[in-house]
């Protein structure tokens, strides 16, 4: 299932003694124009990849910050087609773009059309948090056929033998959810995260990224050496929500990764 050669996304997020940073923004938040602008600025900071969320009315895996951003994006008229345009504009900067979307907007759009248009837009991979491996086909197959990486998630509640199966469905990287919970800003990294990351790394040759609740320099310092990349979402989205662009936050965080420009 995994591509024979390393994909662009895989190469971008794999650590080489450092820690890579993946940033997240919501397409259309607070407007389409602004999200393109912010995405482009973040692309120039030295992050390894940019996740772009497609807003959904009922985001089961997201905390209040990303949920609110999604509601604002929907209120601003953001559509799946509009989100793909945001992705295309940002991907033109040369940064690997990973779309993060719930399954229903993909099904409603037509998964084959979605896969083709995402690939056309220069998207590198797709994460669908409410699509566990049991439900992955045929959608994941259509994404792969369009040369998109399919990133699946491992959670702290995932039994060890299942980790390998999830990894075998994944390409680009394996996304390790650090908390038993939803996205959001948290003060401390959860206990047991190092053990979980070690379990995942034992079971895959793909790069391993972690996300959910990562927002601070000390989090990144603690994670360095234990995985390839860290994803920061809510903290950036919160800044965008307050008319910022998250760039200075990302630059600060990159200092803790050793990959800043």
């Amino acid at each position, binding site marked *: 299932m995994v591509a024979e050669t390393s994909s662009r996304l895989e190469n971008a997020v794999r650590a080489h003694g450092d820690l890579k940073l993946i940033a997240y923004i919501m397409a259309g938040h607070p407007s389409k124009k602004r999200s393109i602008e912010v995405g482009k600025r973040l692309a120039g900071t030295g992050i390894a990849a940019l996740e772009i969320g497609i807003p*959904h*009315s*009922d*985001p*089961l*895996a*997201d*905390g209040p910050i990303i*949920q609110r951003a999604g*509601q604002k994006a*929907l209120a601003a008229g953001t*559509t*799946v087609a509009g989100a793909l345009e945001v992705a295309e504009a940002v991907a033109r900067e040369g940064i690997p773009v990973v779309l993060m979307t*719930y*399954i*229903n*907007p*993909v*099904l*409603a*759009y037509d998964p084959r059309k979605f896969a083709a248009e995402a690939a056309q837009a220069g998207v590198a991979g797709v994460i669908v*948090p*409410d*699509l*566990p491996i*049991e*439900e992955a086909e045929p959608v994941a197959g259509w994404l792969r056929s369009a040369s998109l990486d399919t990133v*699946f*998630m*491992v*959670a*702290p*509640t*995932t*039994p060890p033998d*299942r980790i390998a199966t*999830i990894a075998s469905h994944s390409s680009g990287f394996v996304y390790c*959810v650090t*908390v*038993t*919970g*939803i996205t959001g800003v948290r003060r401390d990294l959860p206990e047991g995260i190092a053990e979980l990351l070690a379990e995942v790394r034992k079971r895959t040759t793909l790069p391993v990224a972690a996300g959910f609740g990562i927002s601070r320099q000390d989090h990144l310092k603690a994670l360095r050496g234990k995985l390839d990349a860290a994803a920061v979402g809510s903290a950036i989205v919160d800044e965008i929500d307050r008319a910022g662009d998250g760039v200075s936050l990302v630059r600060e965080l990159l200092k803790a990764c050793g990959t800043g420009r």
Partner: protein
Amino acid sequence: MSRAALTHPVDGRFGAFGGQYVPETLMSALKELEDMWHEAKADPQFQLELAGHRRAFIGRPTPLYAATRLGEQYGGTHIHFKREDLCHTGAHKLNNAVGQALLAVRMGKKRIIAETGAGQHGVATATVCARFGLECTVYMGSEDMQRQSMNVRRMKLLGAKVVEVTSGTRTLKDATTEAIRDWVSNVRTTHYIIGSVVGPHPYPEMVRDLQRVIGDEAREQYLSLDGKLPDVVVACVGGGSNAIGIFTAFLDDRDVQLVGVEAAGKGIRTGEHAASLVGGRPGVLHGSYSYVLQDGDGQILPTHSISAGLDYPGVGPEHAFLRDIERVEYVAVTDKDALAAFRLCTRLEGIMPALEPSHAIHHAGVIAKELGPGGRILVCLSGRGDKDMDSVDGG
């Protein structure tokens, strides 16, 4: 066909519908729940305990009642009500809550969460948590808290924490989304008692198994009248638990027509309704693939129904399956017609139905005309109407 229906779900699906569209964090809990449910279901001790609570706590079997004056009004039809309004706490919801609470105790989970629309499932859950000494949190949309304030007070008196949900449409859909998000965060210690035959596998199956007692009793009671079955069984459908509960026993009776009644709100054409099967199309909501009210982009649409219990943009996946194999017919009834049926039933029978089954009562009148005098209709009277006083003005 209906044999096949009874053996479902297969691998968590009813035909194409169902599944487990949830974050990975919940997958092992769903597996545990499925295993525990199958184990409990096969355990005579568990069944004995459940039967005891059904008898002494819920008040089962509930009666089958001949609504003769309503039948006369409807042109000489034999109308019977399965009286789920006489269950403790006033609705069929307790059948499910008791079973799932017993399961939570068996799993060693001490914290319970639930979503509620009309408040009946919230009250049922708060009730079983009081009964079994479990911590209880109920998620409820702020709009529903207003229109069902009595049930909010009942839940609080029972010791439950009621969390007001202000996101999205502020009704059952958003309360369910919030409850799932809570479950994702507290899955190790918490059992989520879903109130209907919705959500990821194994919920639609488990809730059906716990609600089918309605139809199992009703079929036997009906046969004991004169040895014959009804021509038609009618039930209202929001998520669809009382309907699945009464339909399941009749699925193999091919001569018995089954009709599910959704909420047409202000009319299907106005877009202000909650009829997922009549006016929606397949999609994923709250962890399962079924009929969903959604826009062209897969965003879940706001719904409207005068009855909070039907005000939901999705429906259980087994209903989607039963619709597609044409075993059950689904129709929709407006707010206005449901209100008229509420008043008629109250005046003629001295039984005040909840607004939810009032939709089914109205449609029983429509079917009665088609059947003509002597027709035999069984209606699931899923709950009582006291809670709806604020929605029903005077007259």
